[in-house]
């Protein structure tokens, strides 16, 4: 227990360091971009309208003040950390004065809902089928699935998504191809709304699964074909333990470790959103928010999203490290 506590504290320090350095890297990179949020705002406001050069200069000054961009870089950096430590990312510069956190929180449920479901489904299915394929090597169905998933795996995601969209939205239009829910649907009827959201998420989820499943499938199949030659599997087979039991408790169980670590990383990364999915299917979420923030030079928003993502990934990695002994008892706290 004491060793574990020592490990825990060491690991927590490492977590803090990783998060700190990670956020600093993104801070540096976002502030290196030449995009100026003030100019972006001015352009957006004056693109088509009447304007005069003198007025622009005045706008520029008042916006700098309004956005809090005055002061030395060091002062800005310090005030950034002061705010972040209390969980405040400040106002968005491209949707001033709306707080960044409000924008992120609005988009996050969609992203998390879509990606959590698709990531977990992909992981479970891919590993299950991959495990079966590694164990029942002669199954034709599984072989065919292997070939199929390997063929789809390298297709650029954009193309997969679009082909699905054309098939189910145009040639055989049975599924909605846009948005997270039907326009003007009644959100007070919880059940109907939930069903509507599910139906709208079918194509995005399918597309994400189509390209994602092959990786897990192939990884698991390779792991399992190694494990089936291990002595404990051979021995259990010799002992007449039921195949199903062997598959579950000896083969899959033992292949789980690396796959769980992979899953943790992916789950953490879902906070980045699925930019192309959101674009192709018009699905609401963090990804398009991020891209539009980058375009608008809204570094408050970019930093807000990347910080959430960095903390989420580090936290899941930390969690997995701490829980890993449950998956593989051989791993002691080092």
């Amino acid at each position, binding site marked *: 227990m004491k060793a574990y506590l020592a490990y825990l504290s060491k690991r927590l320090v490492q977590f803090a360091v*990783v998060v700190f350095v*990670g956020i600093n890297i993104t801070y540096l990179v976002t502030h290196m971009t030449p995009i100026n949020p003030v100019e972006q705002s001015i352009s957006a406001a004056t693109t088509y309208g009447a304007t005069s050069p003198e007025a622009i200069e005045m706008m520029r000054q008042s916006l700098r003040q309004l956005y809090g961009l005055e002061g030395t870089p060091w002062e800005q950096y310090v005030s950034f950390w002061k705010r972040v430590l209390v969980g405040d990312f400040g106002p968005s510069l491209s949707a001033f004065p709306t707080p960044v956190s409000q924008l992120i929180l609005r988009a996050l449920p969609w992203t998390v809902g879509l990606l959590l479901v698709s990531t977990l489904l992909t992981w479970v299915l891919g590993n299950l089928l991959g495990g079966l394929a590694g164990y029942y090597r002669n199954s034709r169905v599984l072989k065919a699935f292997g070939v199929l998933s390997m063929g789809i795996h*390298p297709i650029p995601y*954009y193309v997969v998504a679009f*082909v699905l969209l054309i098939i189910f939205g145009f040639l055989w239009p049975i599924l909605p191809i846009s948005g997270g829910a039907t326009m003007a649907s009644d959100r007070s009827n919880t059940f109907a709304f939930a069903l509507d959201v599910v139906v709208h998420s079918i194509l995005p989820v399918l597309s994400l699964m189509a390209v994602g499943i092959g990786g897990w499938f192939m990884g698991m199949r390779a792991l399992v074909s190694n494990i089936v030659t291990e002595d404990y599997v051979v021995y259990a087979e010799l002992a007449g333990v039921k195949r199903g039991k062997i598959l579950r408790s000896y083969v899959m169980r033992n292949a789980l470790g690396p796959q769980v670590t992979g899953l943790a990383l992916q789950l953490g990364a879902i906070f980045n959103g699925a930019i192309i999915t959101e*674009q192709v299917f018009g699905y609401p979420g963090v990804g398009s928010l991020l891209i539009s923030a980058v375009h608008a030079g809204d570094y408050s928003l*970019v930093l807000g999203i990347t910080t959430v993502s*960095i903390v989420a990934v580090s936290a899941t990695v930390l969690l997995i490290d701490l829980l890993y002994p449950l998956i593989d008892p051989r791993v002691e706290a080092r």
Partner: protein
Amino acid sequence: MNTFRIFRDLFRYNGEFAIGLMLVLIVLAVAACSFFSPYPPMDVYVVPPDVPPSWEYPLGTTSRGQDVFWQLTVAIRNTLLFGIVVAALSRVISLLVGLISGYKGGWVDRVLMSINDTFVVVPLFPILVLFYFIMRDQMTWAMLAVITALLGWAYDARLIRSIAMSLRTREFTRQAVFSGMSTGKIVLQEHLPFVLPIVFSTTMNNINWSIGIEVTLSVLGFTDINTPTIGGMIYWANQHTALVSGIWWWITFPVLLVIMLFIGLFLLAISMNEYIDPRSRLSRLGGQA
């Protein structure tokens, strides 16, 4: 056995290797054709646009008046080169970090793994896009390759570290230490051979991953569109709404070629692995006979 004979035998007797090699060779041949292209790759409207695959234009022509085949030769060459550069660079980094960290342990390990973990958690995509804005027109594909490689080594370094860690406790390492071999020598001579199979398979994954990154960035328009790449072709096809306009050959053929490359590399990796990895070779003979 000399290398040539190994390859010959593998080719003759290992179906997976043969198919894999054939696929990769086809892709390479297509890439090599780029040097004989009758059109400058960047020029548009050199042939009539929107011609479906025909005798004159076997893979059709694009809405930009480019011959899909010749465009594809240059695109696959650049994409392949990109993938290889990324894979090679990031392999070097992950091998160095992984082996040193796994072998040295202690504070070196902790520092290296902290750096490593930072790269694991930093969100790759926004950083790449931001870099695109920072570098602007200096963001050539070579630059992109370097940056992608710098961001793409961390996960595999952890994998290699774990292998190195298990190797460190093995008998021969102790022997080597007692016999006074230097760290570098131990790592290079004793550990590398055990790590190579994993490097091999991660290389394949990495090439595939980096091509995916390239395509994603291109589709969103965050790359240098002057250089023809697979992603660039999809970008331009997209700009011309090729899919709904029925110019399917503009997208289908690049995608097919990428699939061929991927499957080819995959088959090569598993068949080569079987050859390199003593354990799976043994299992083919059915354990100890």
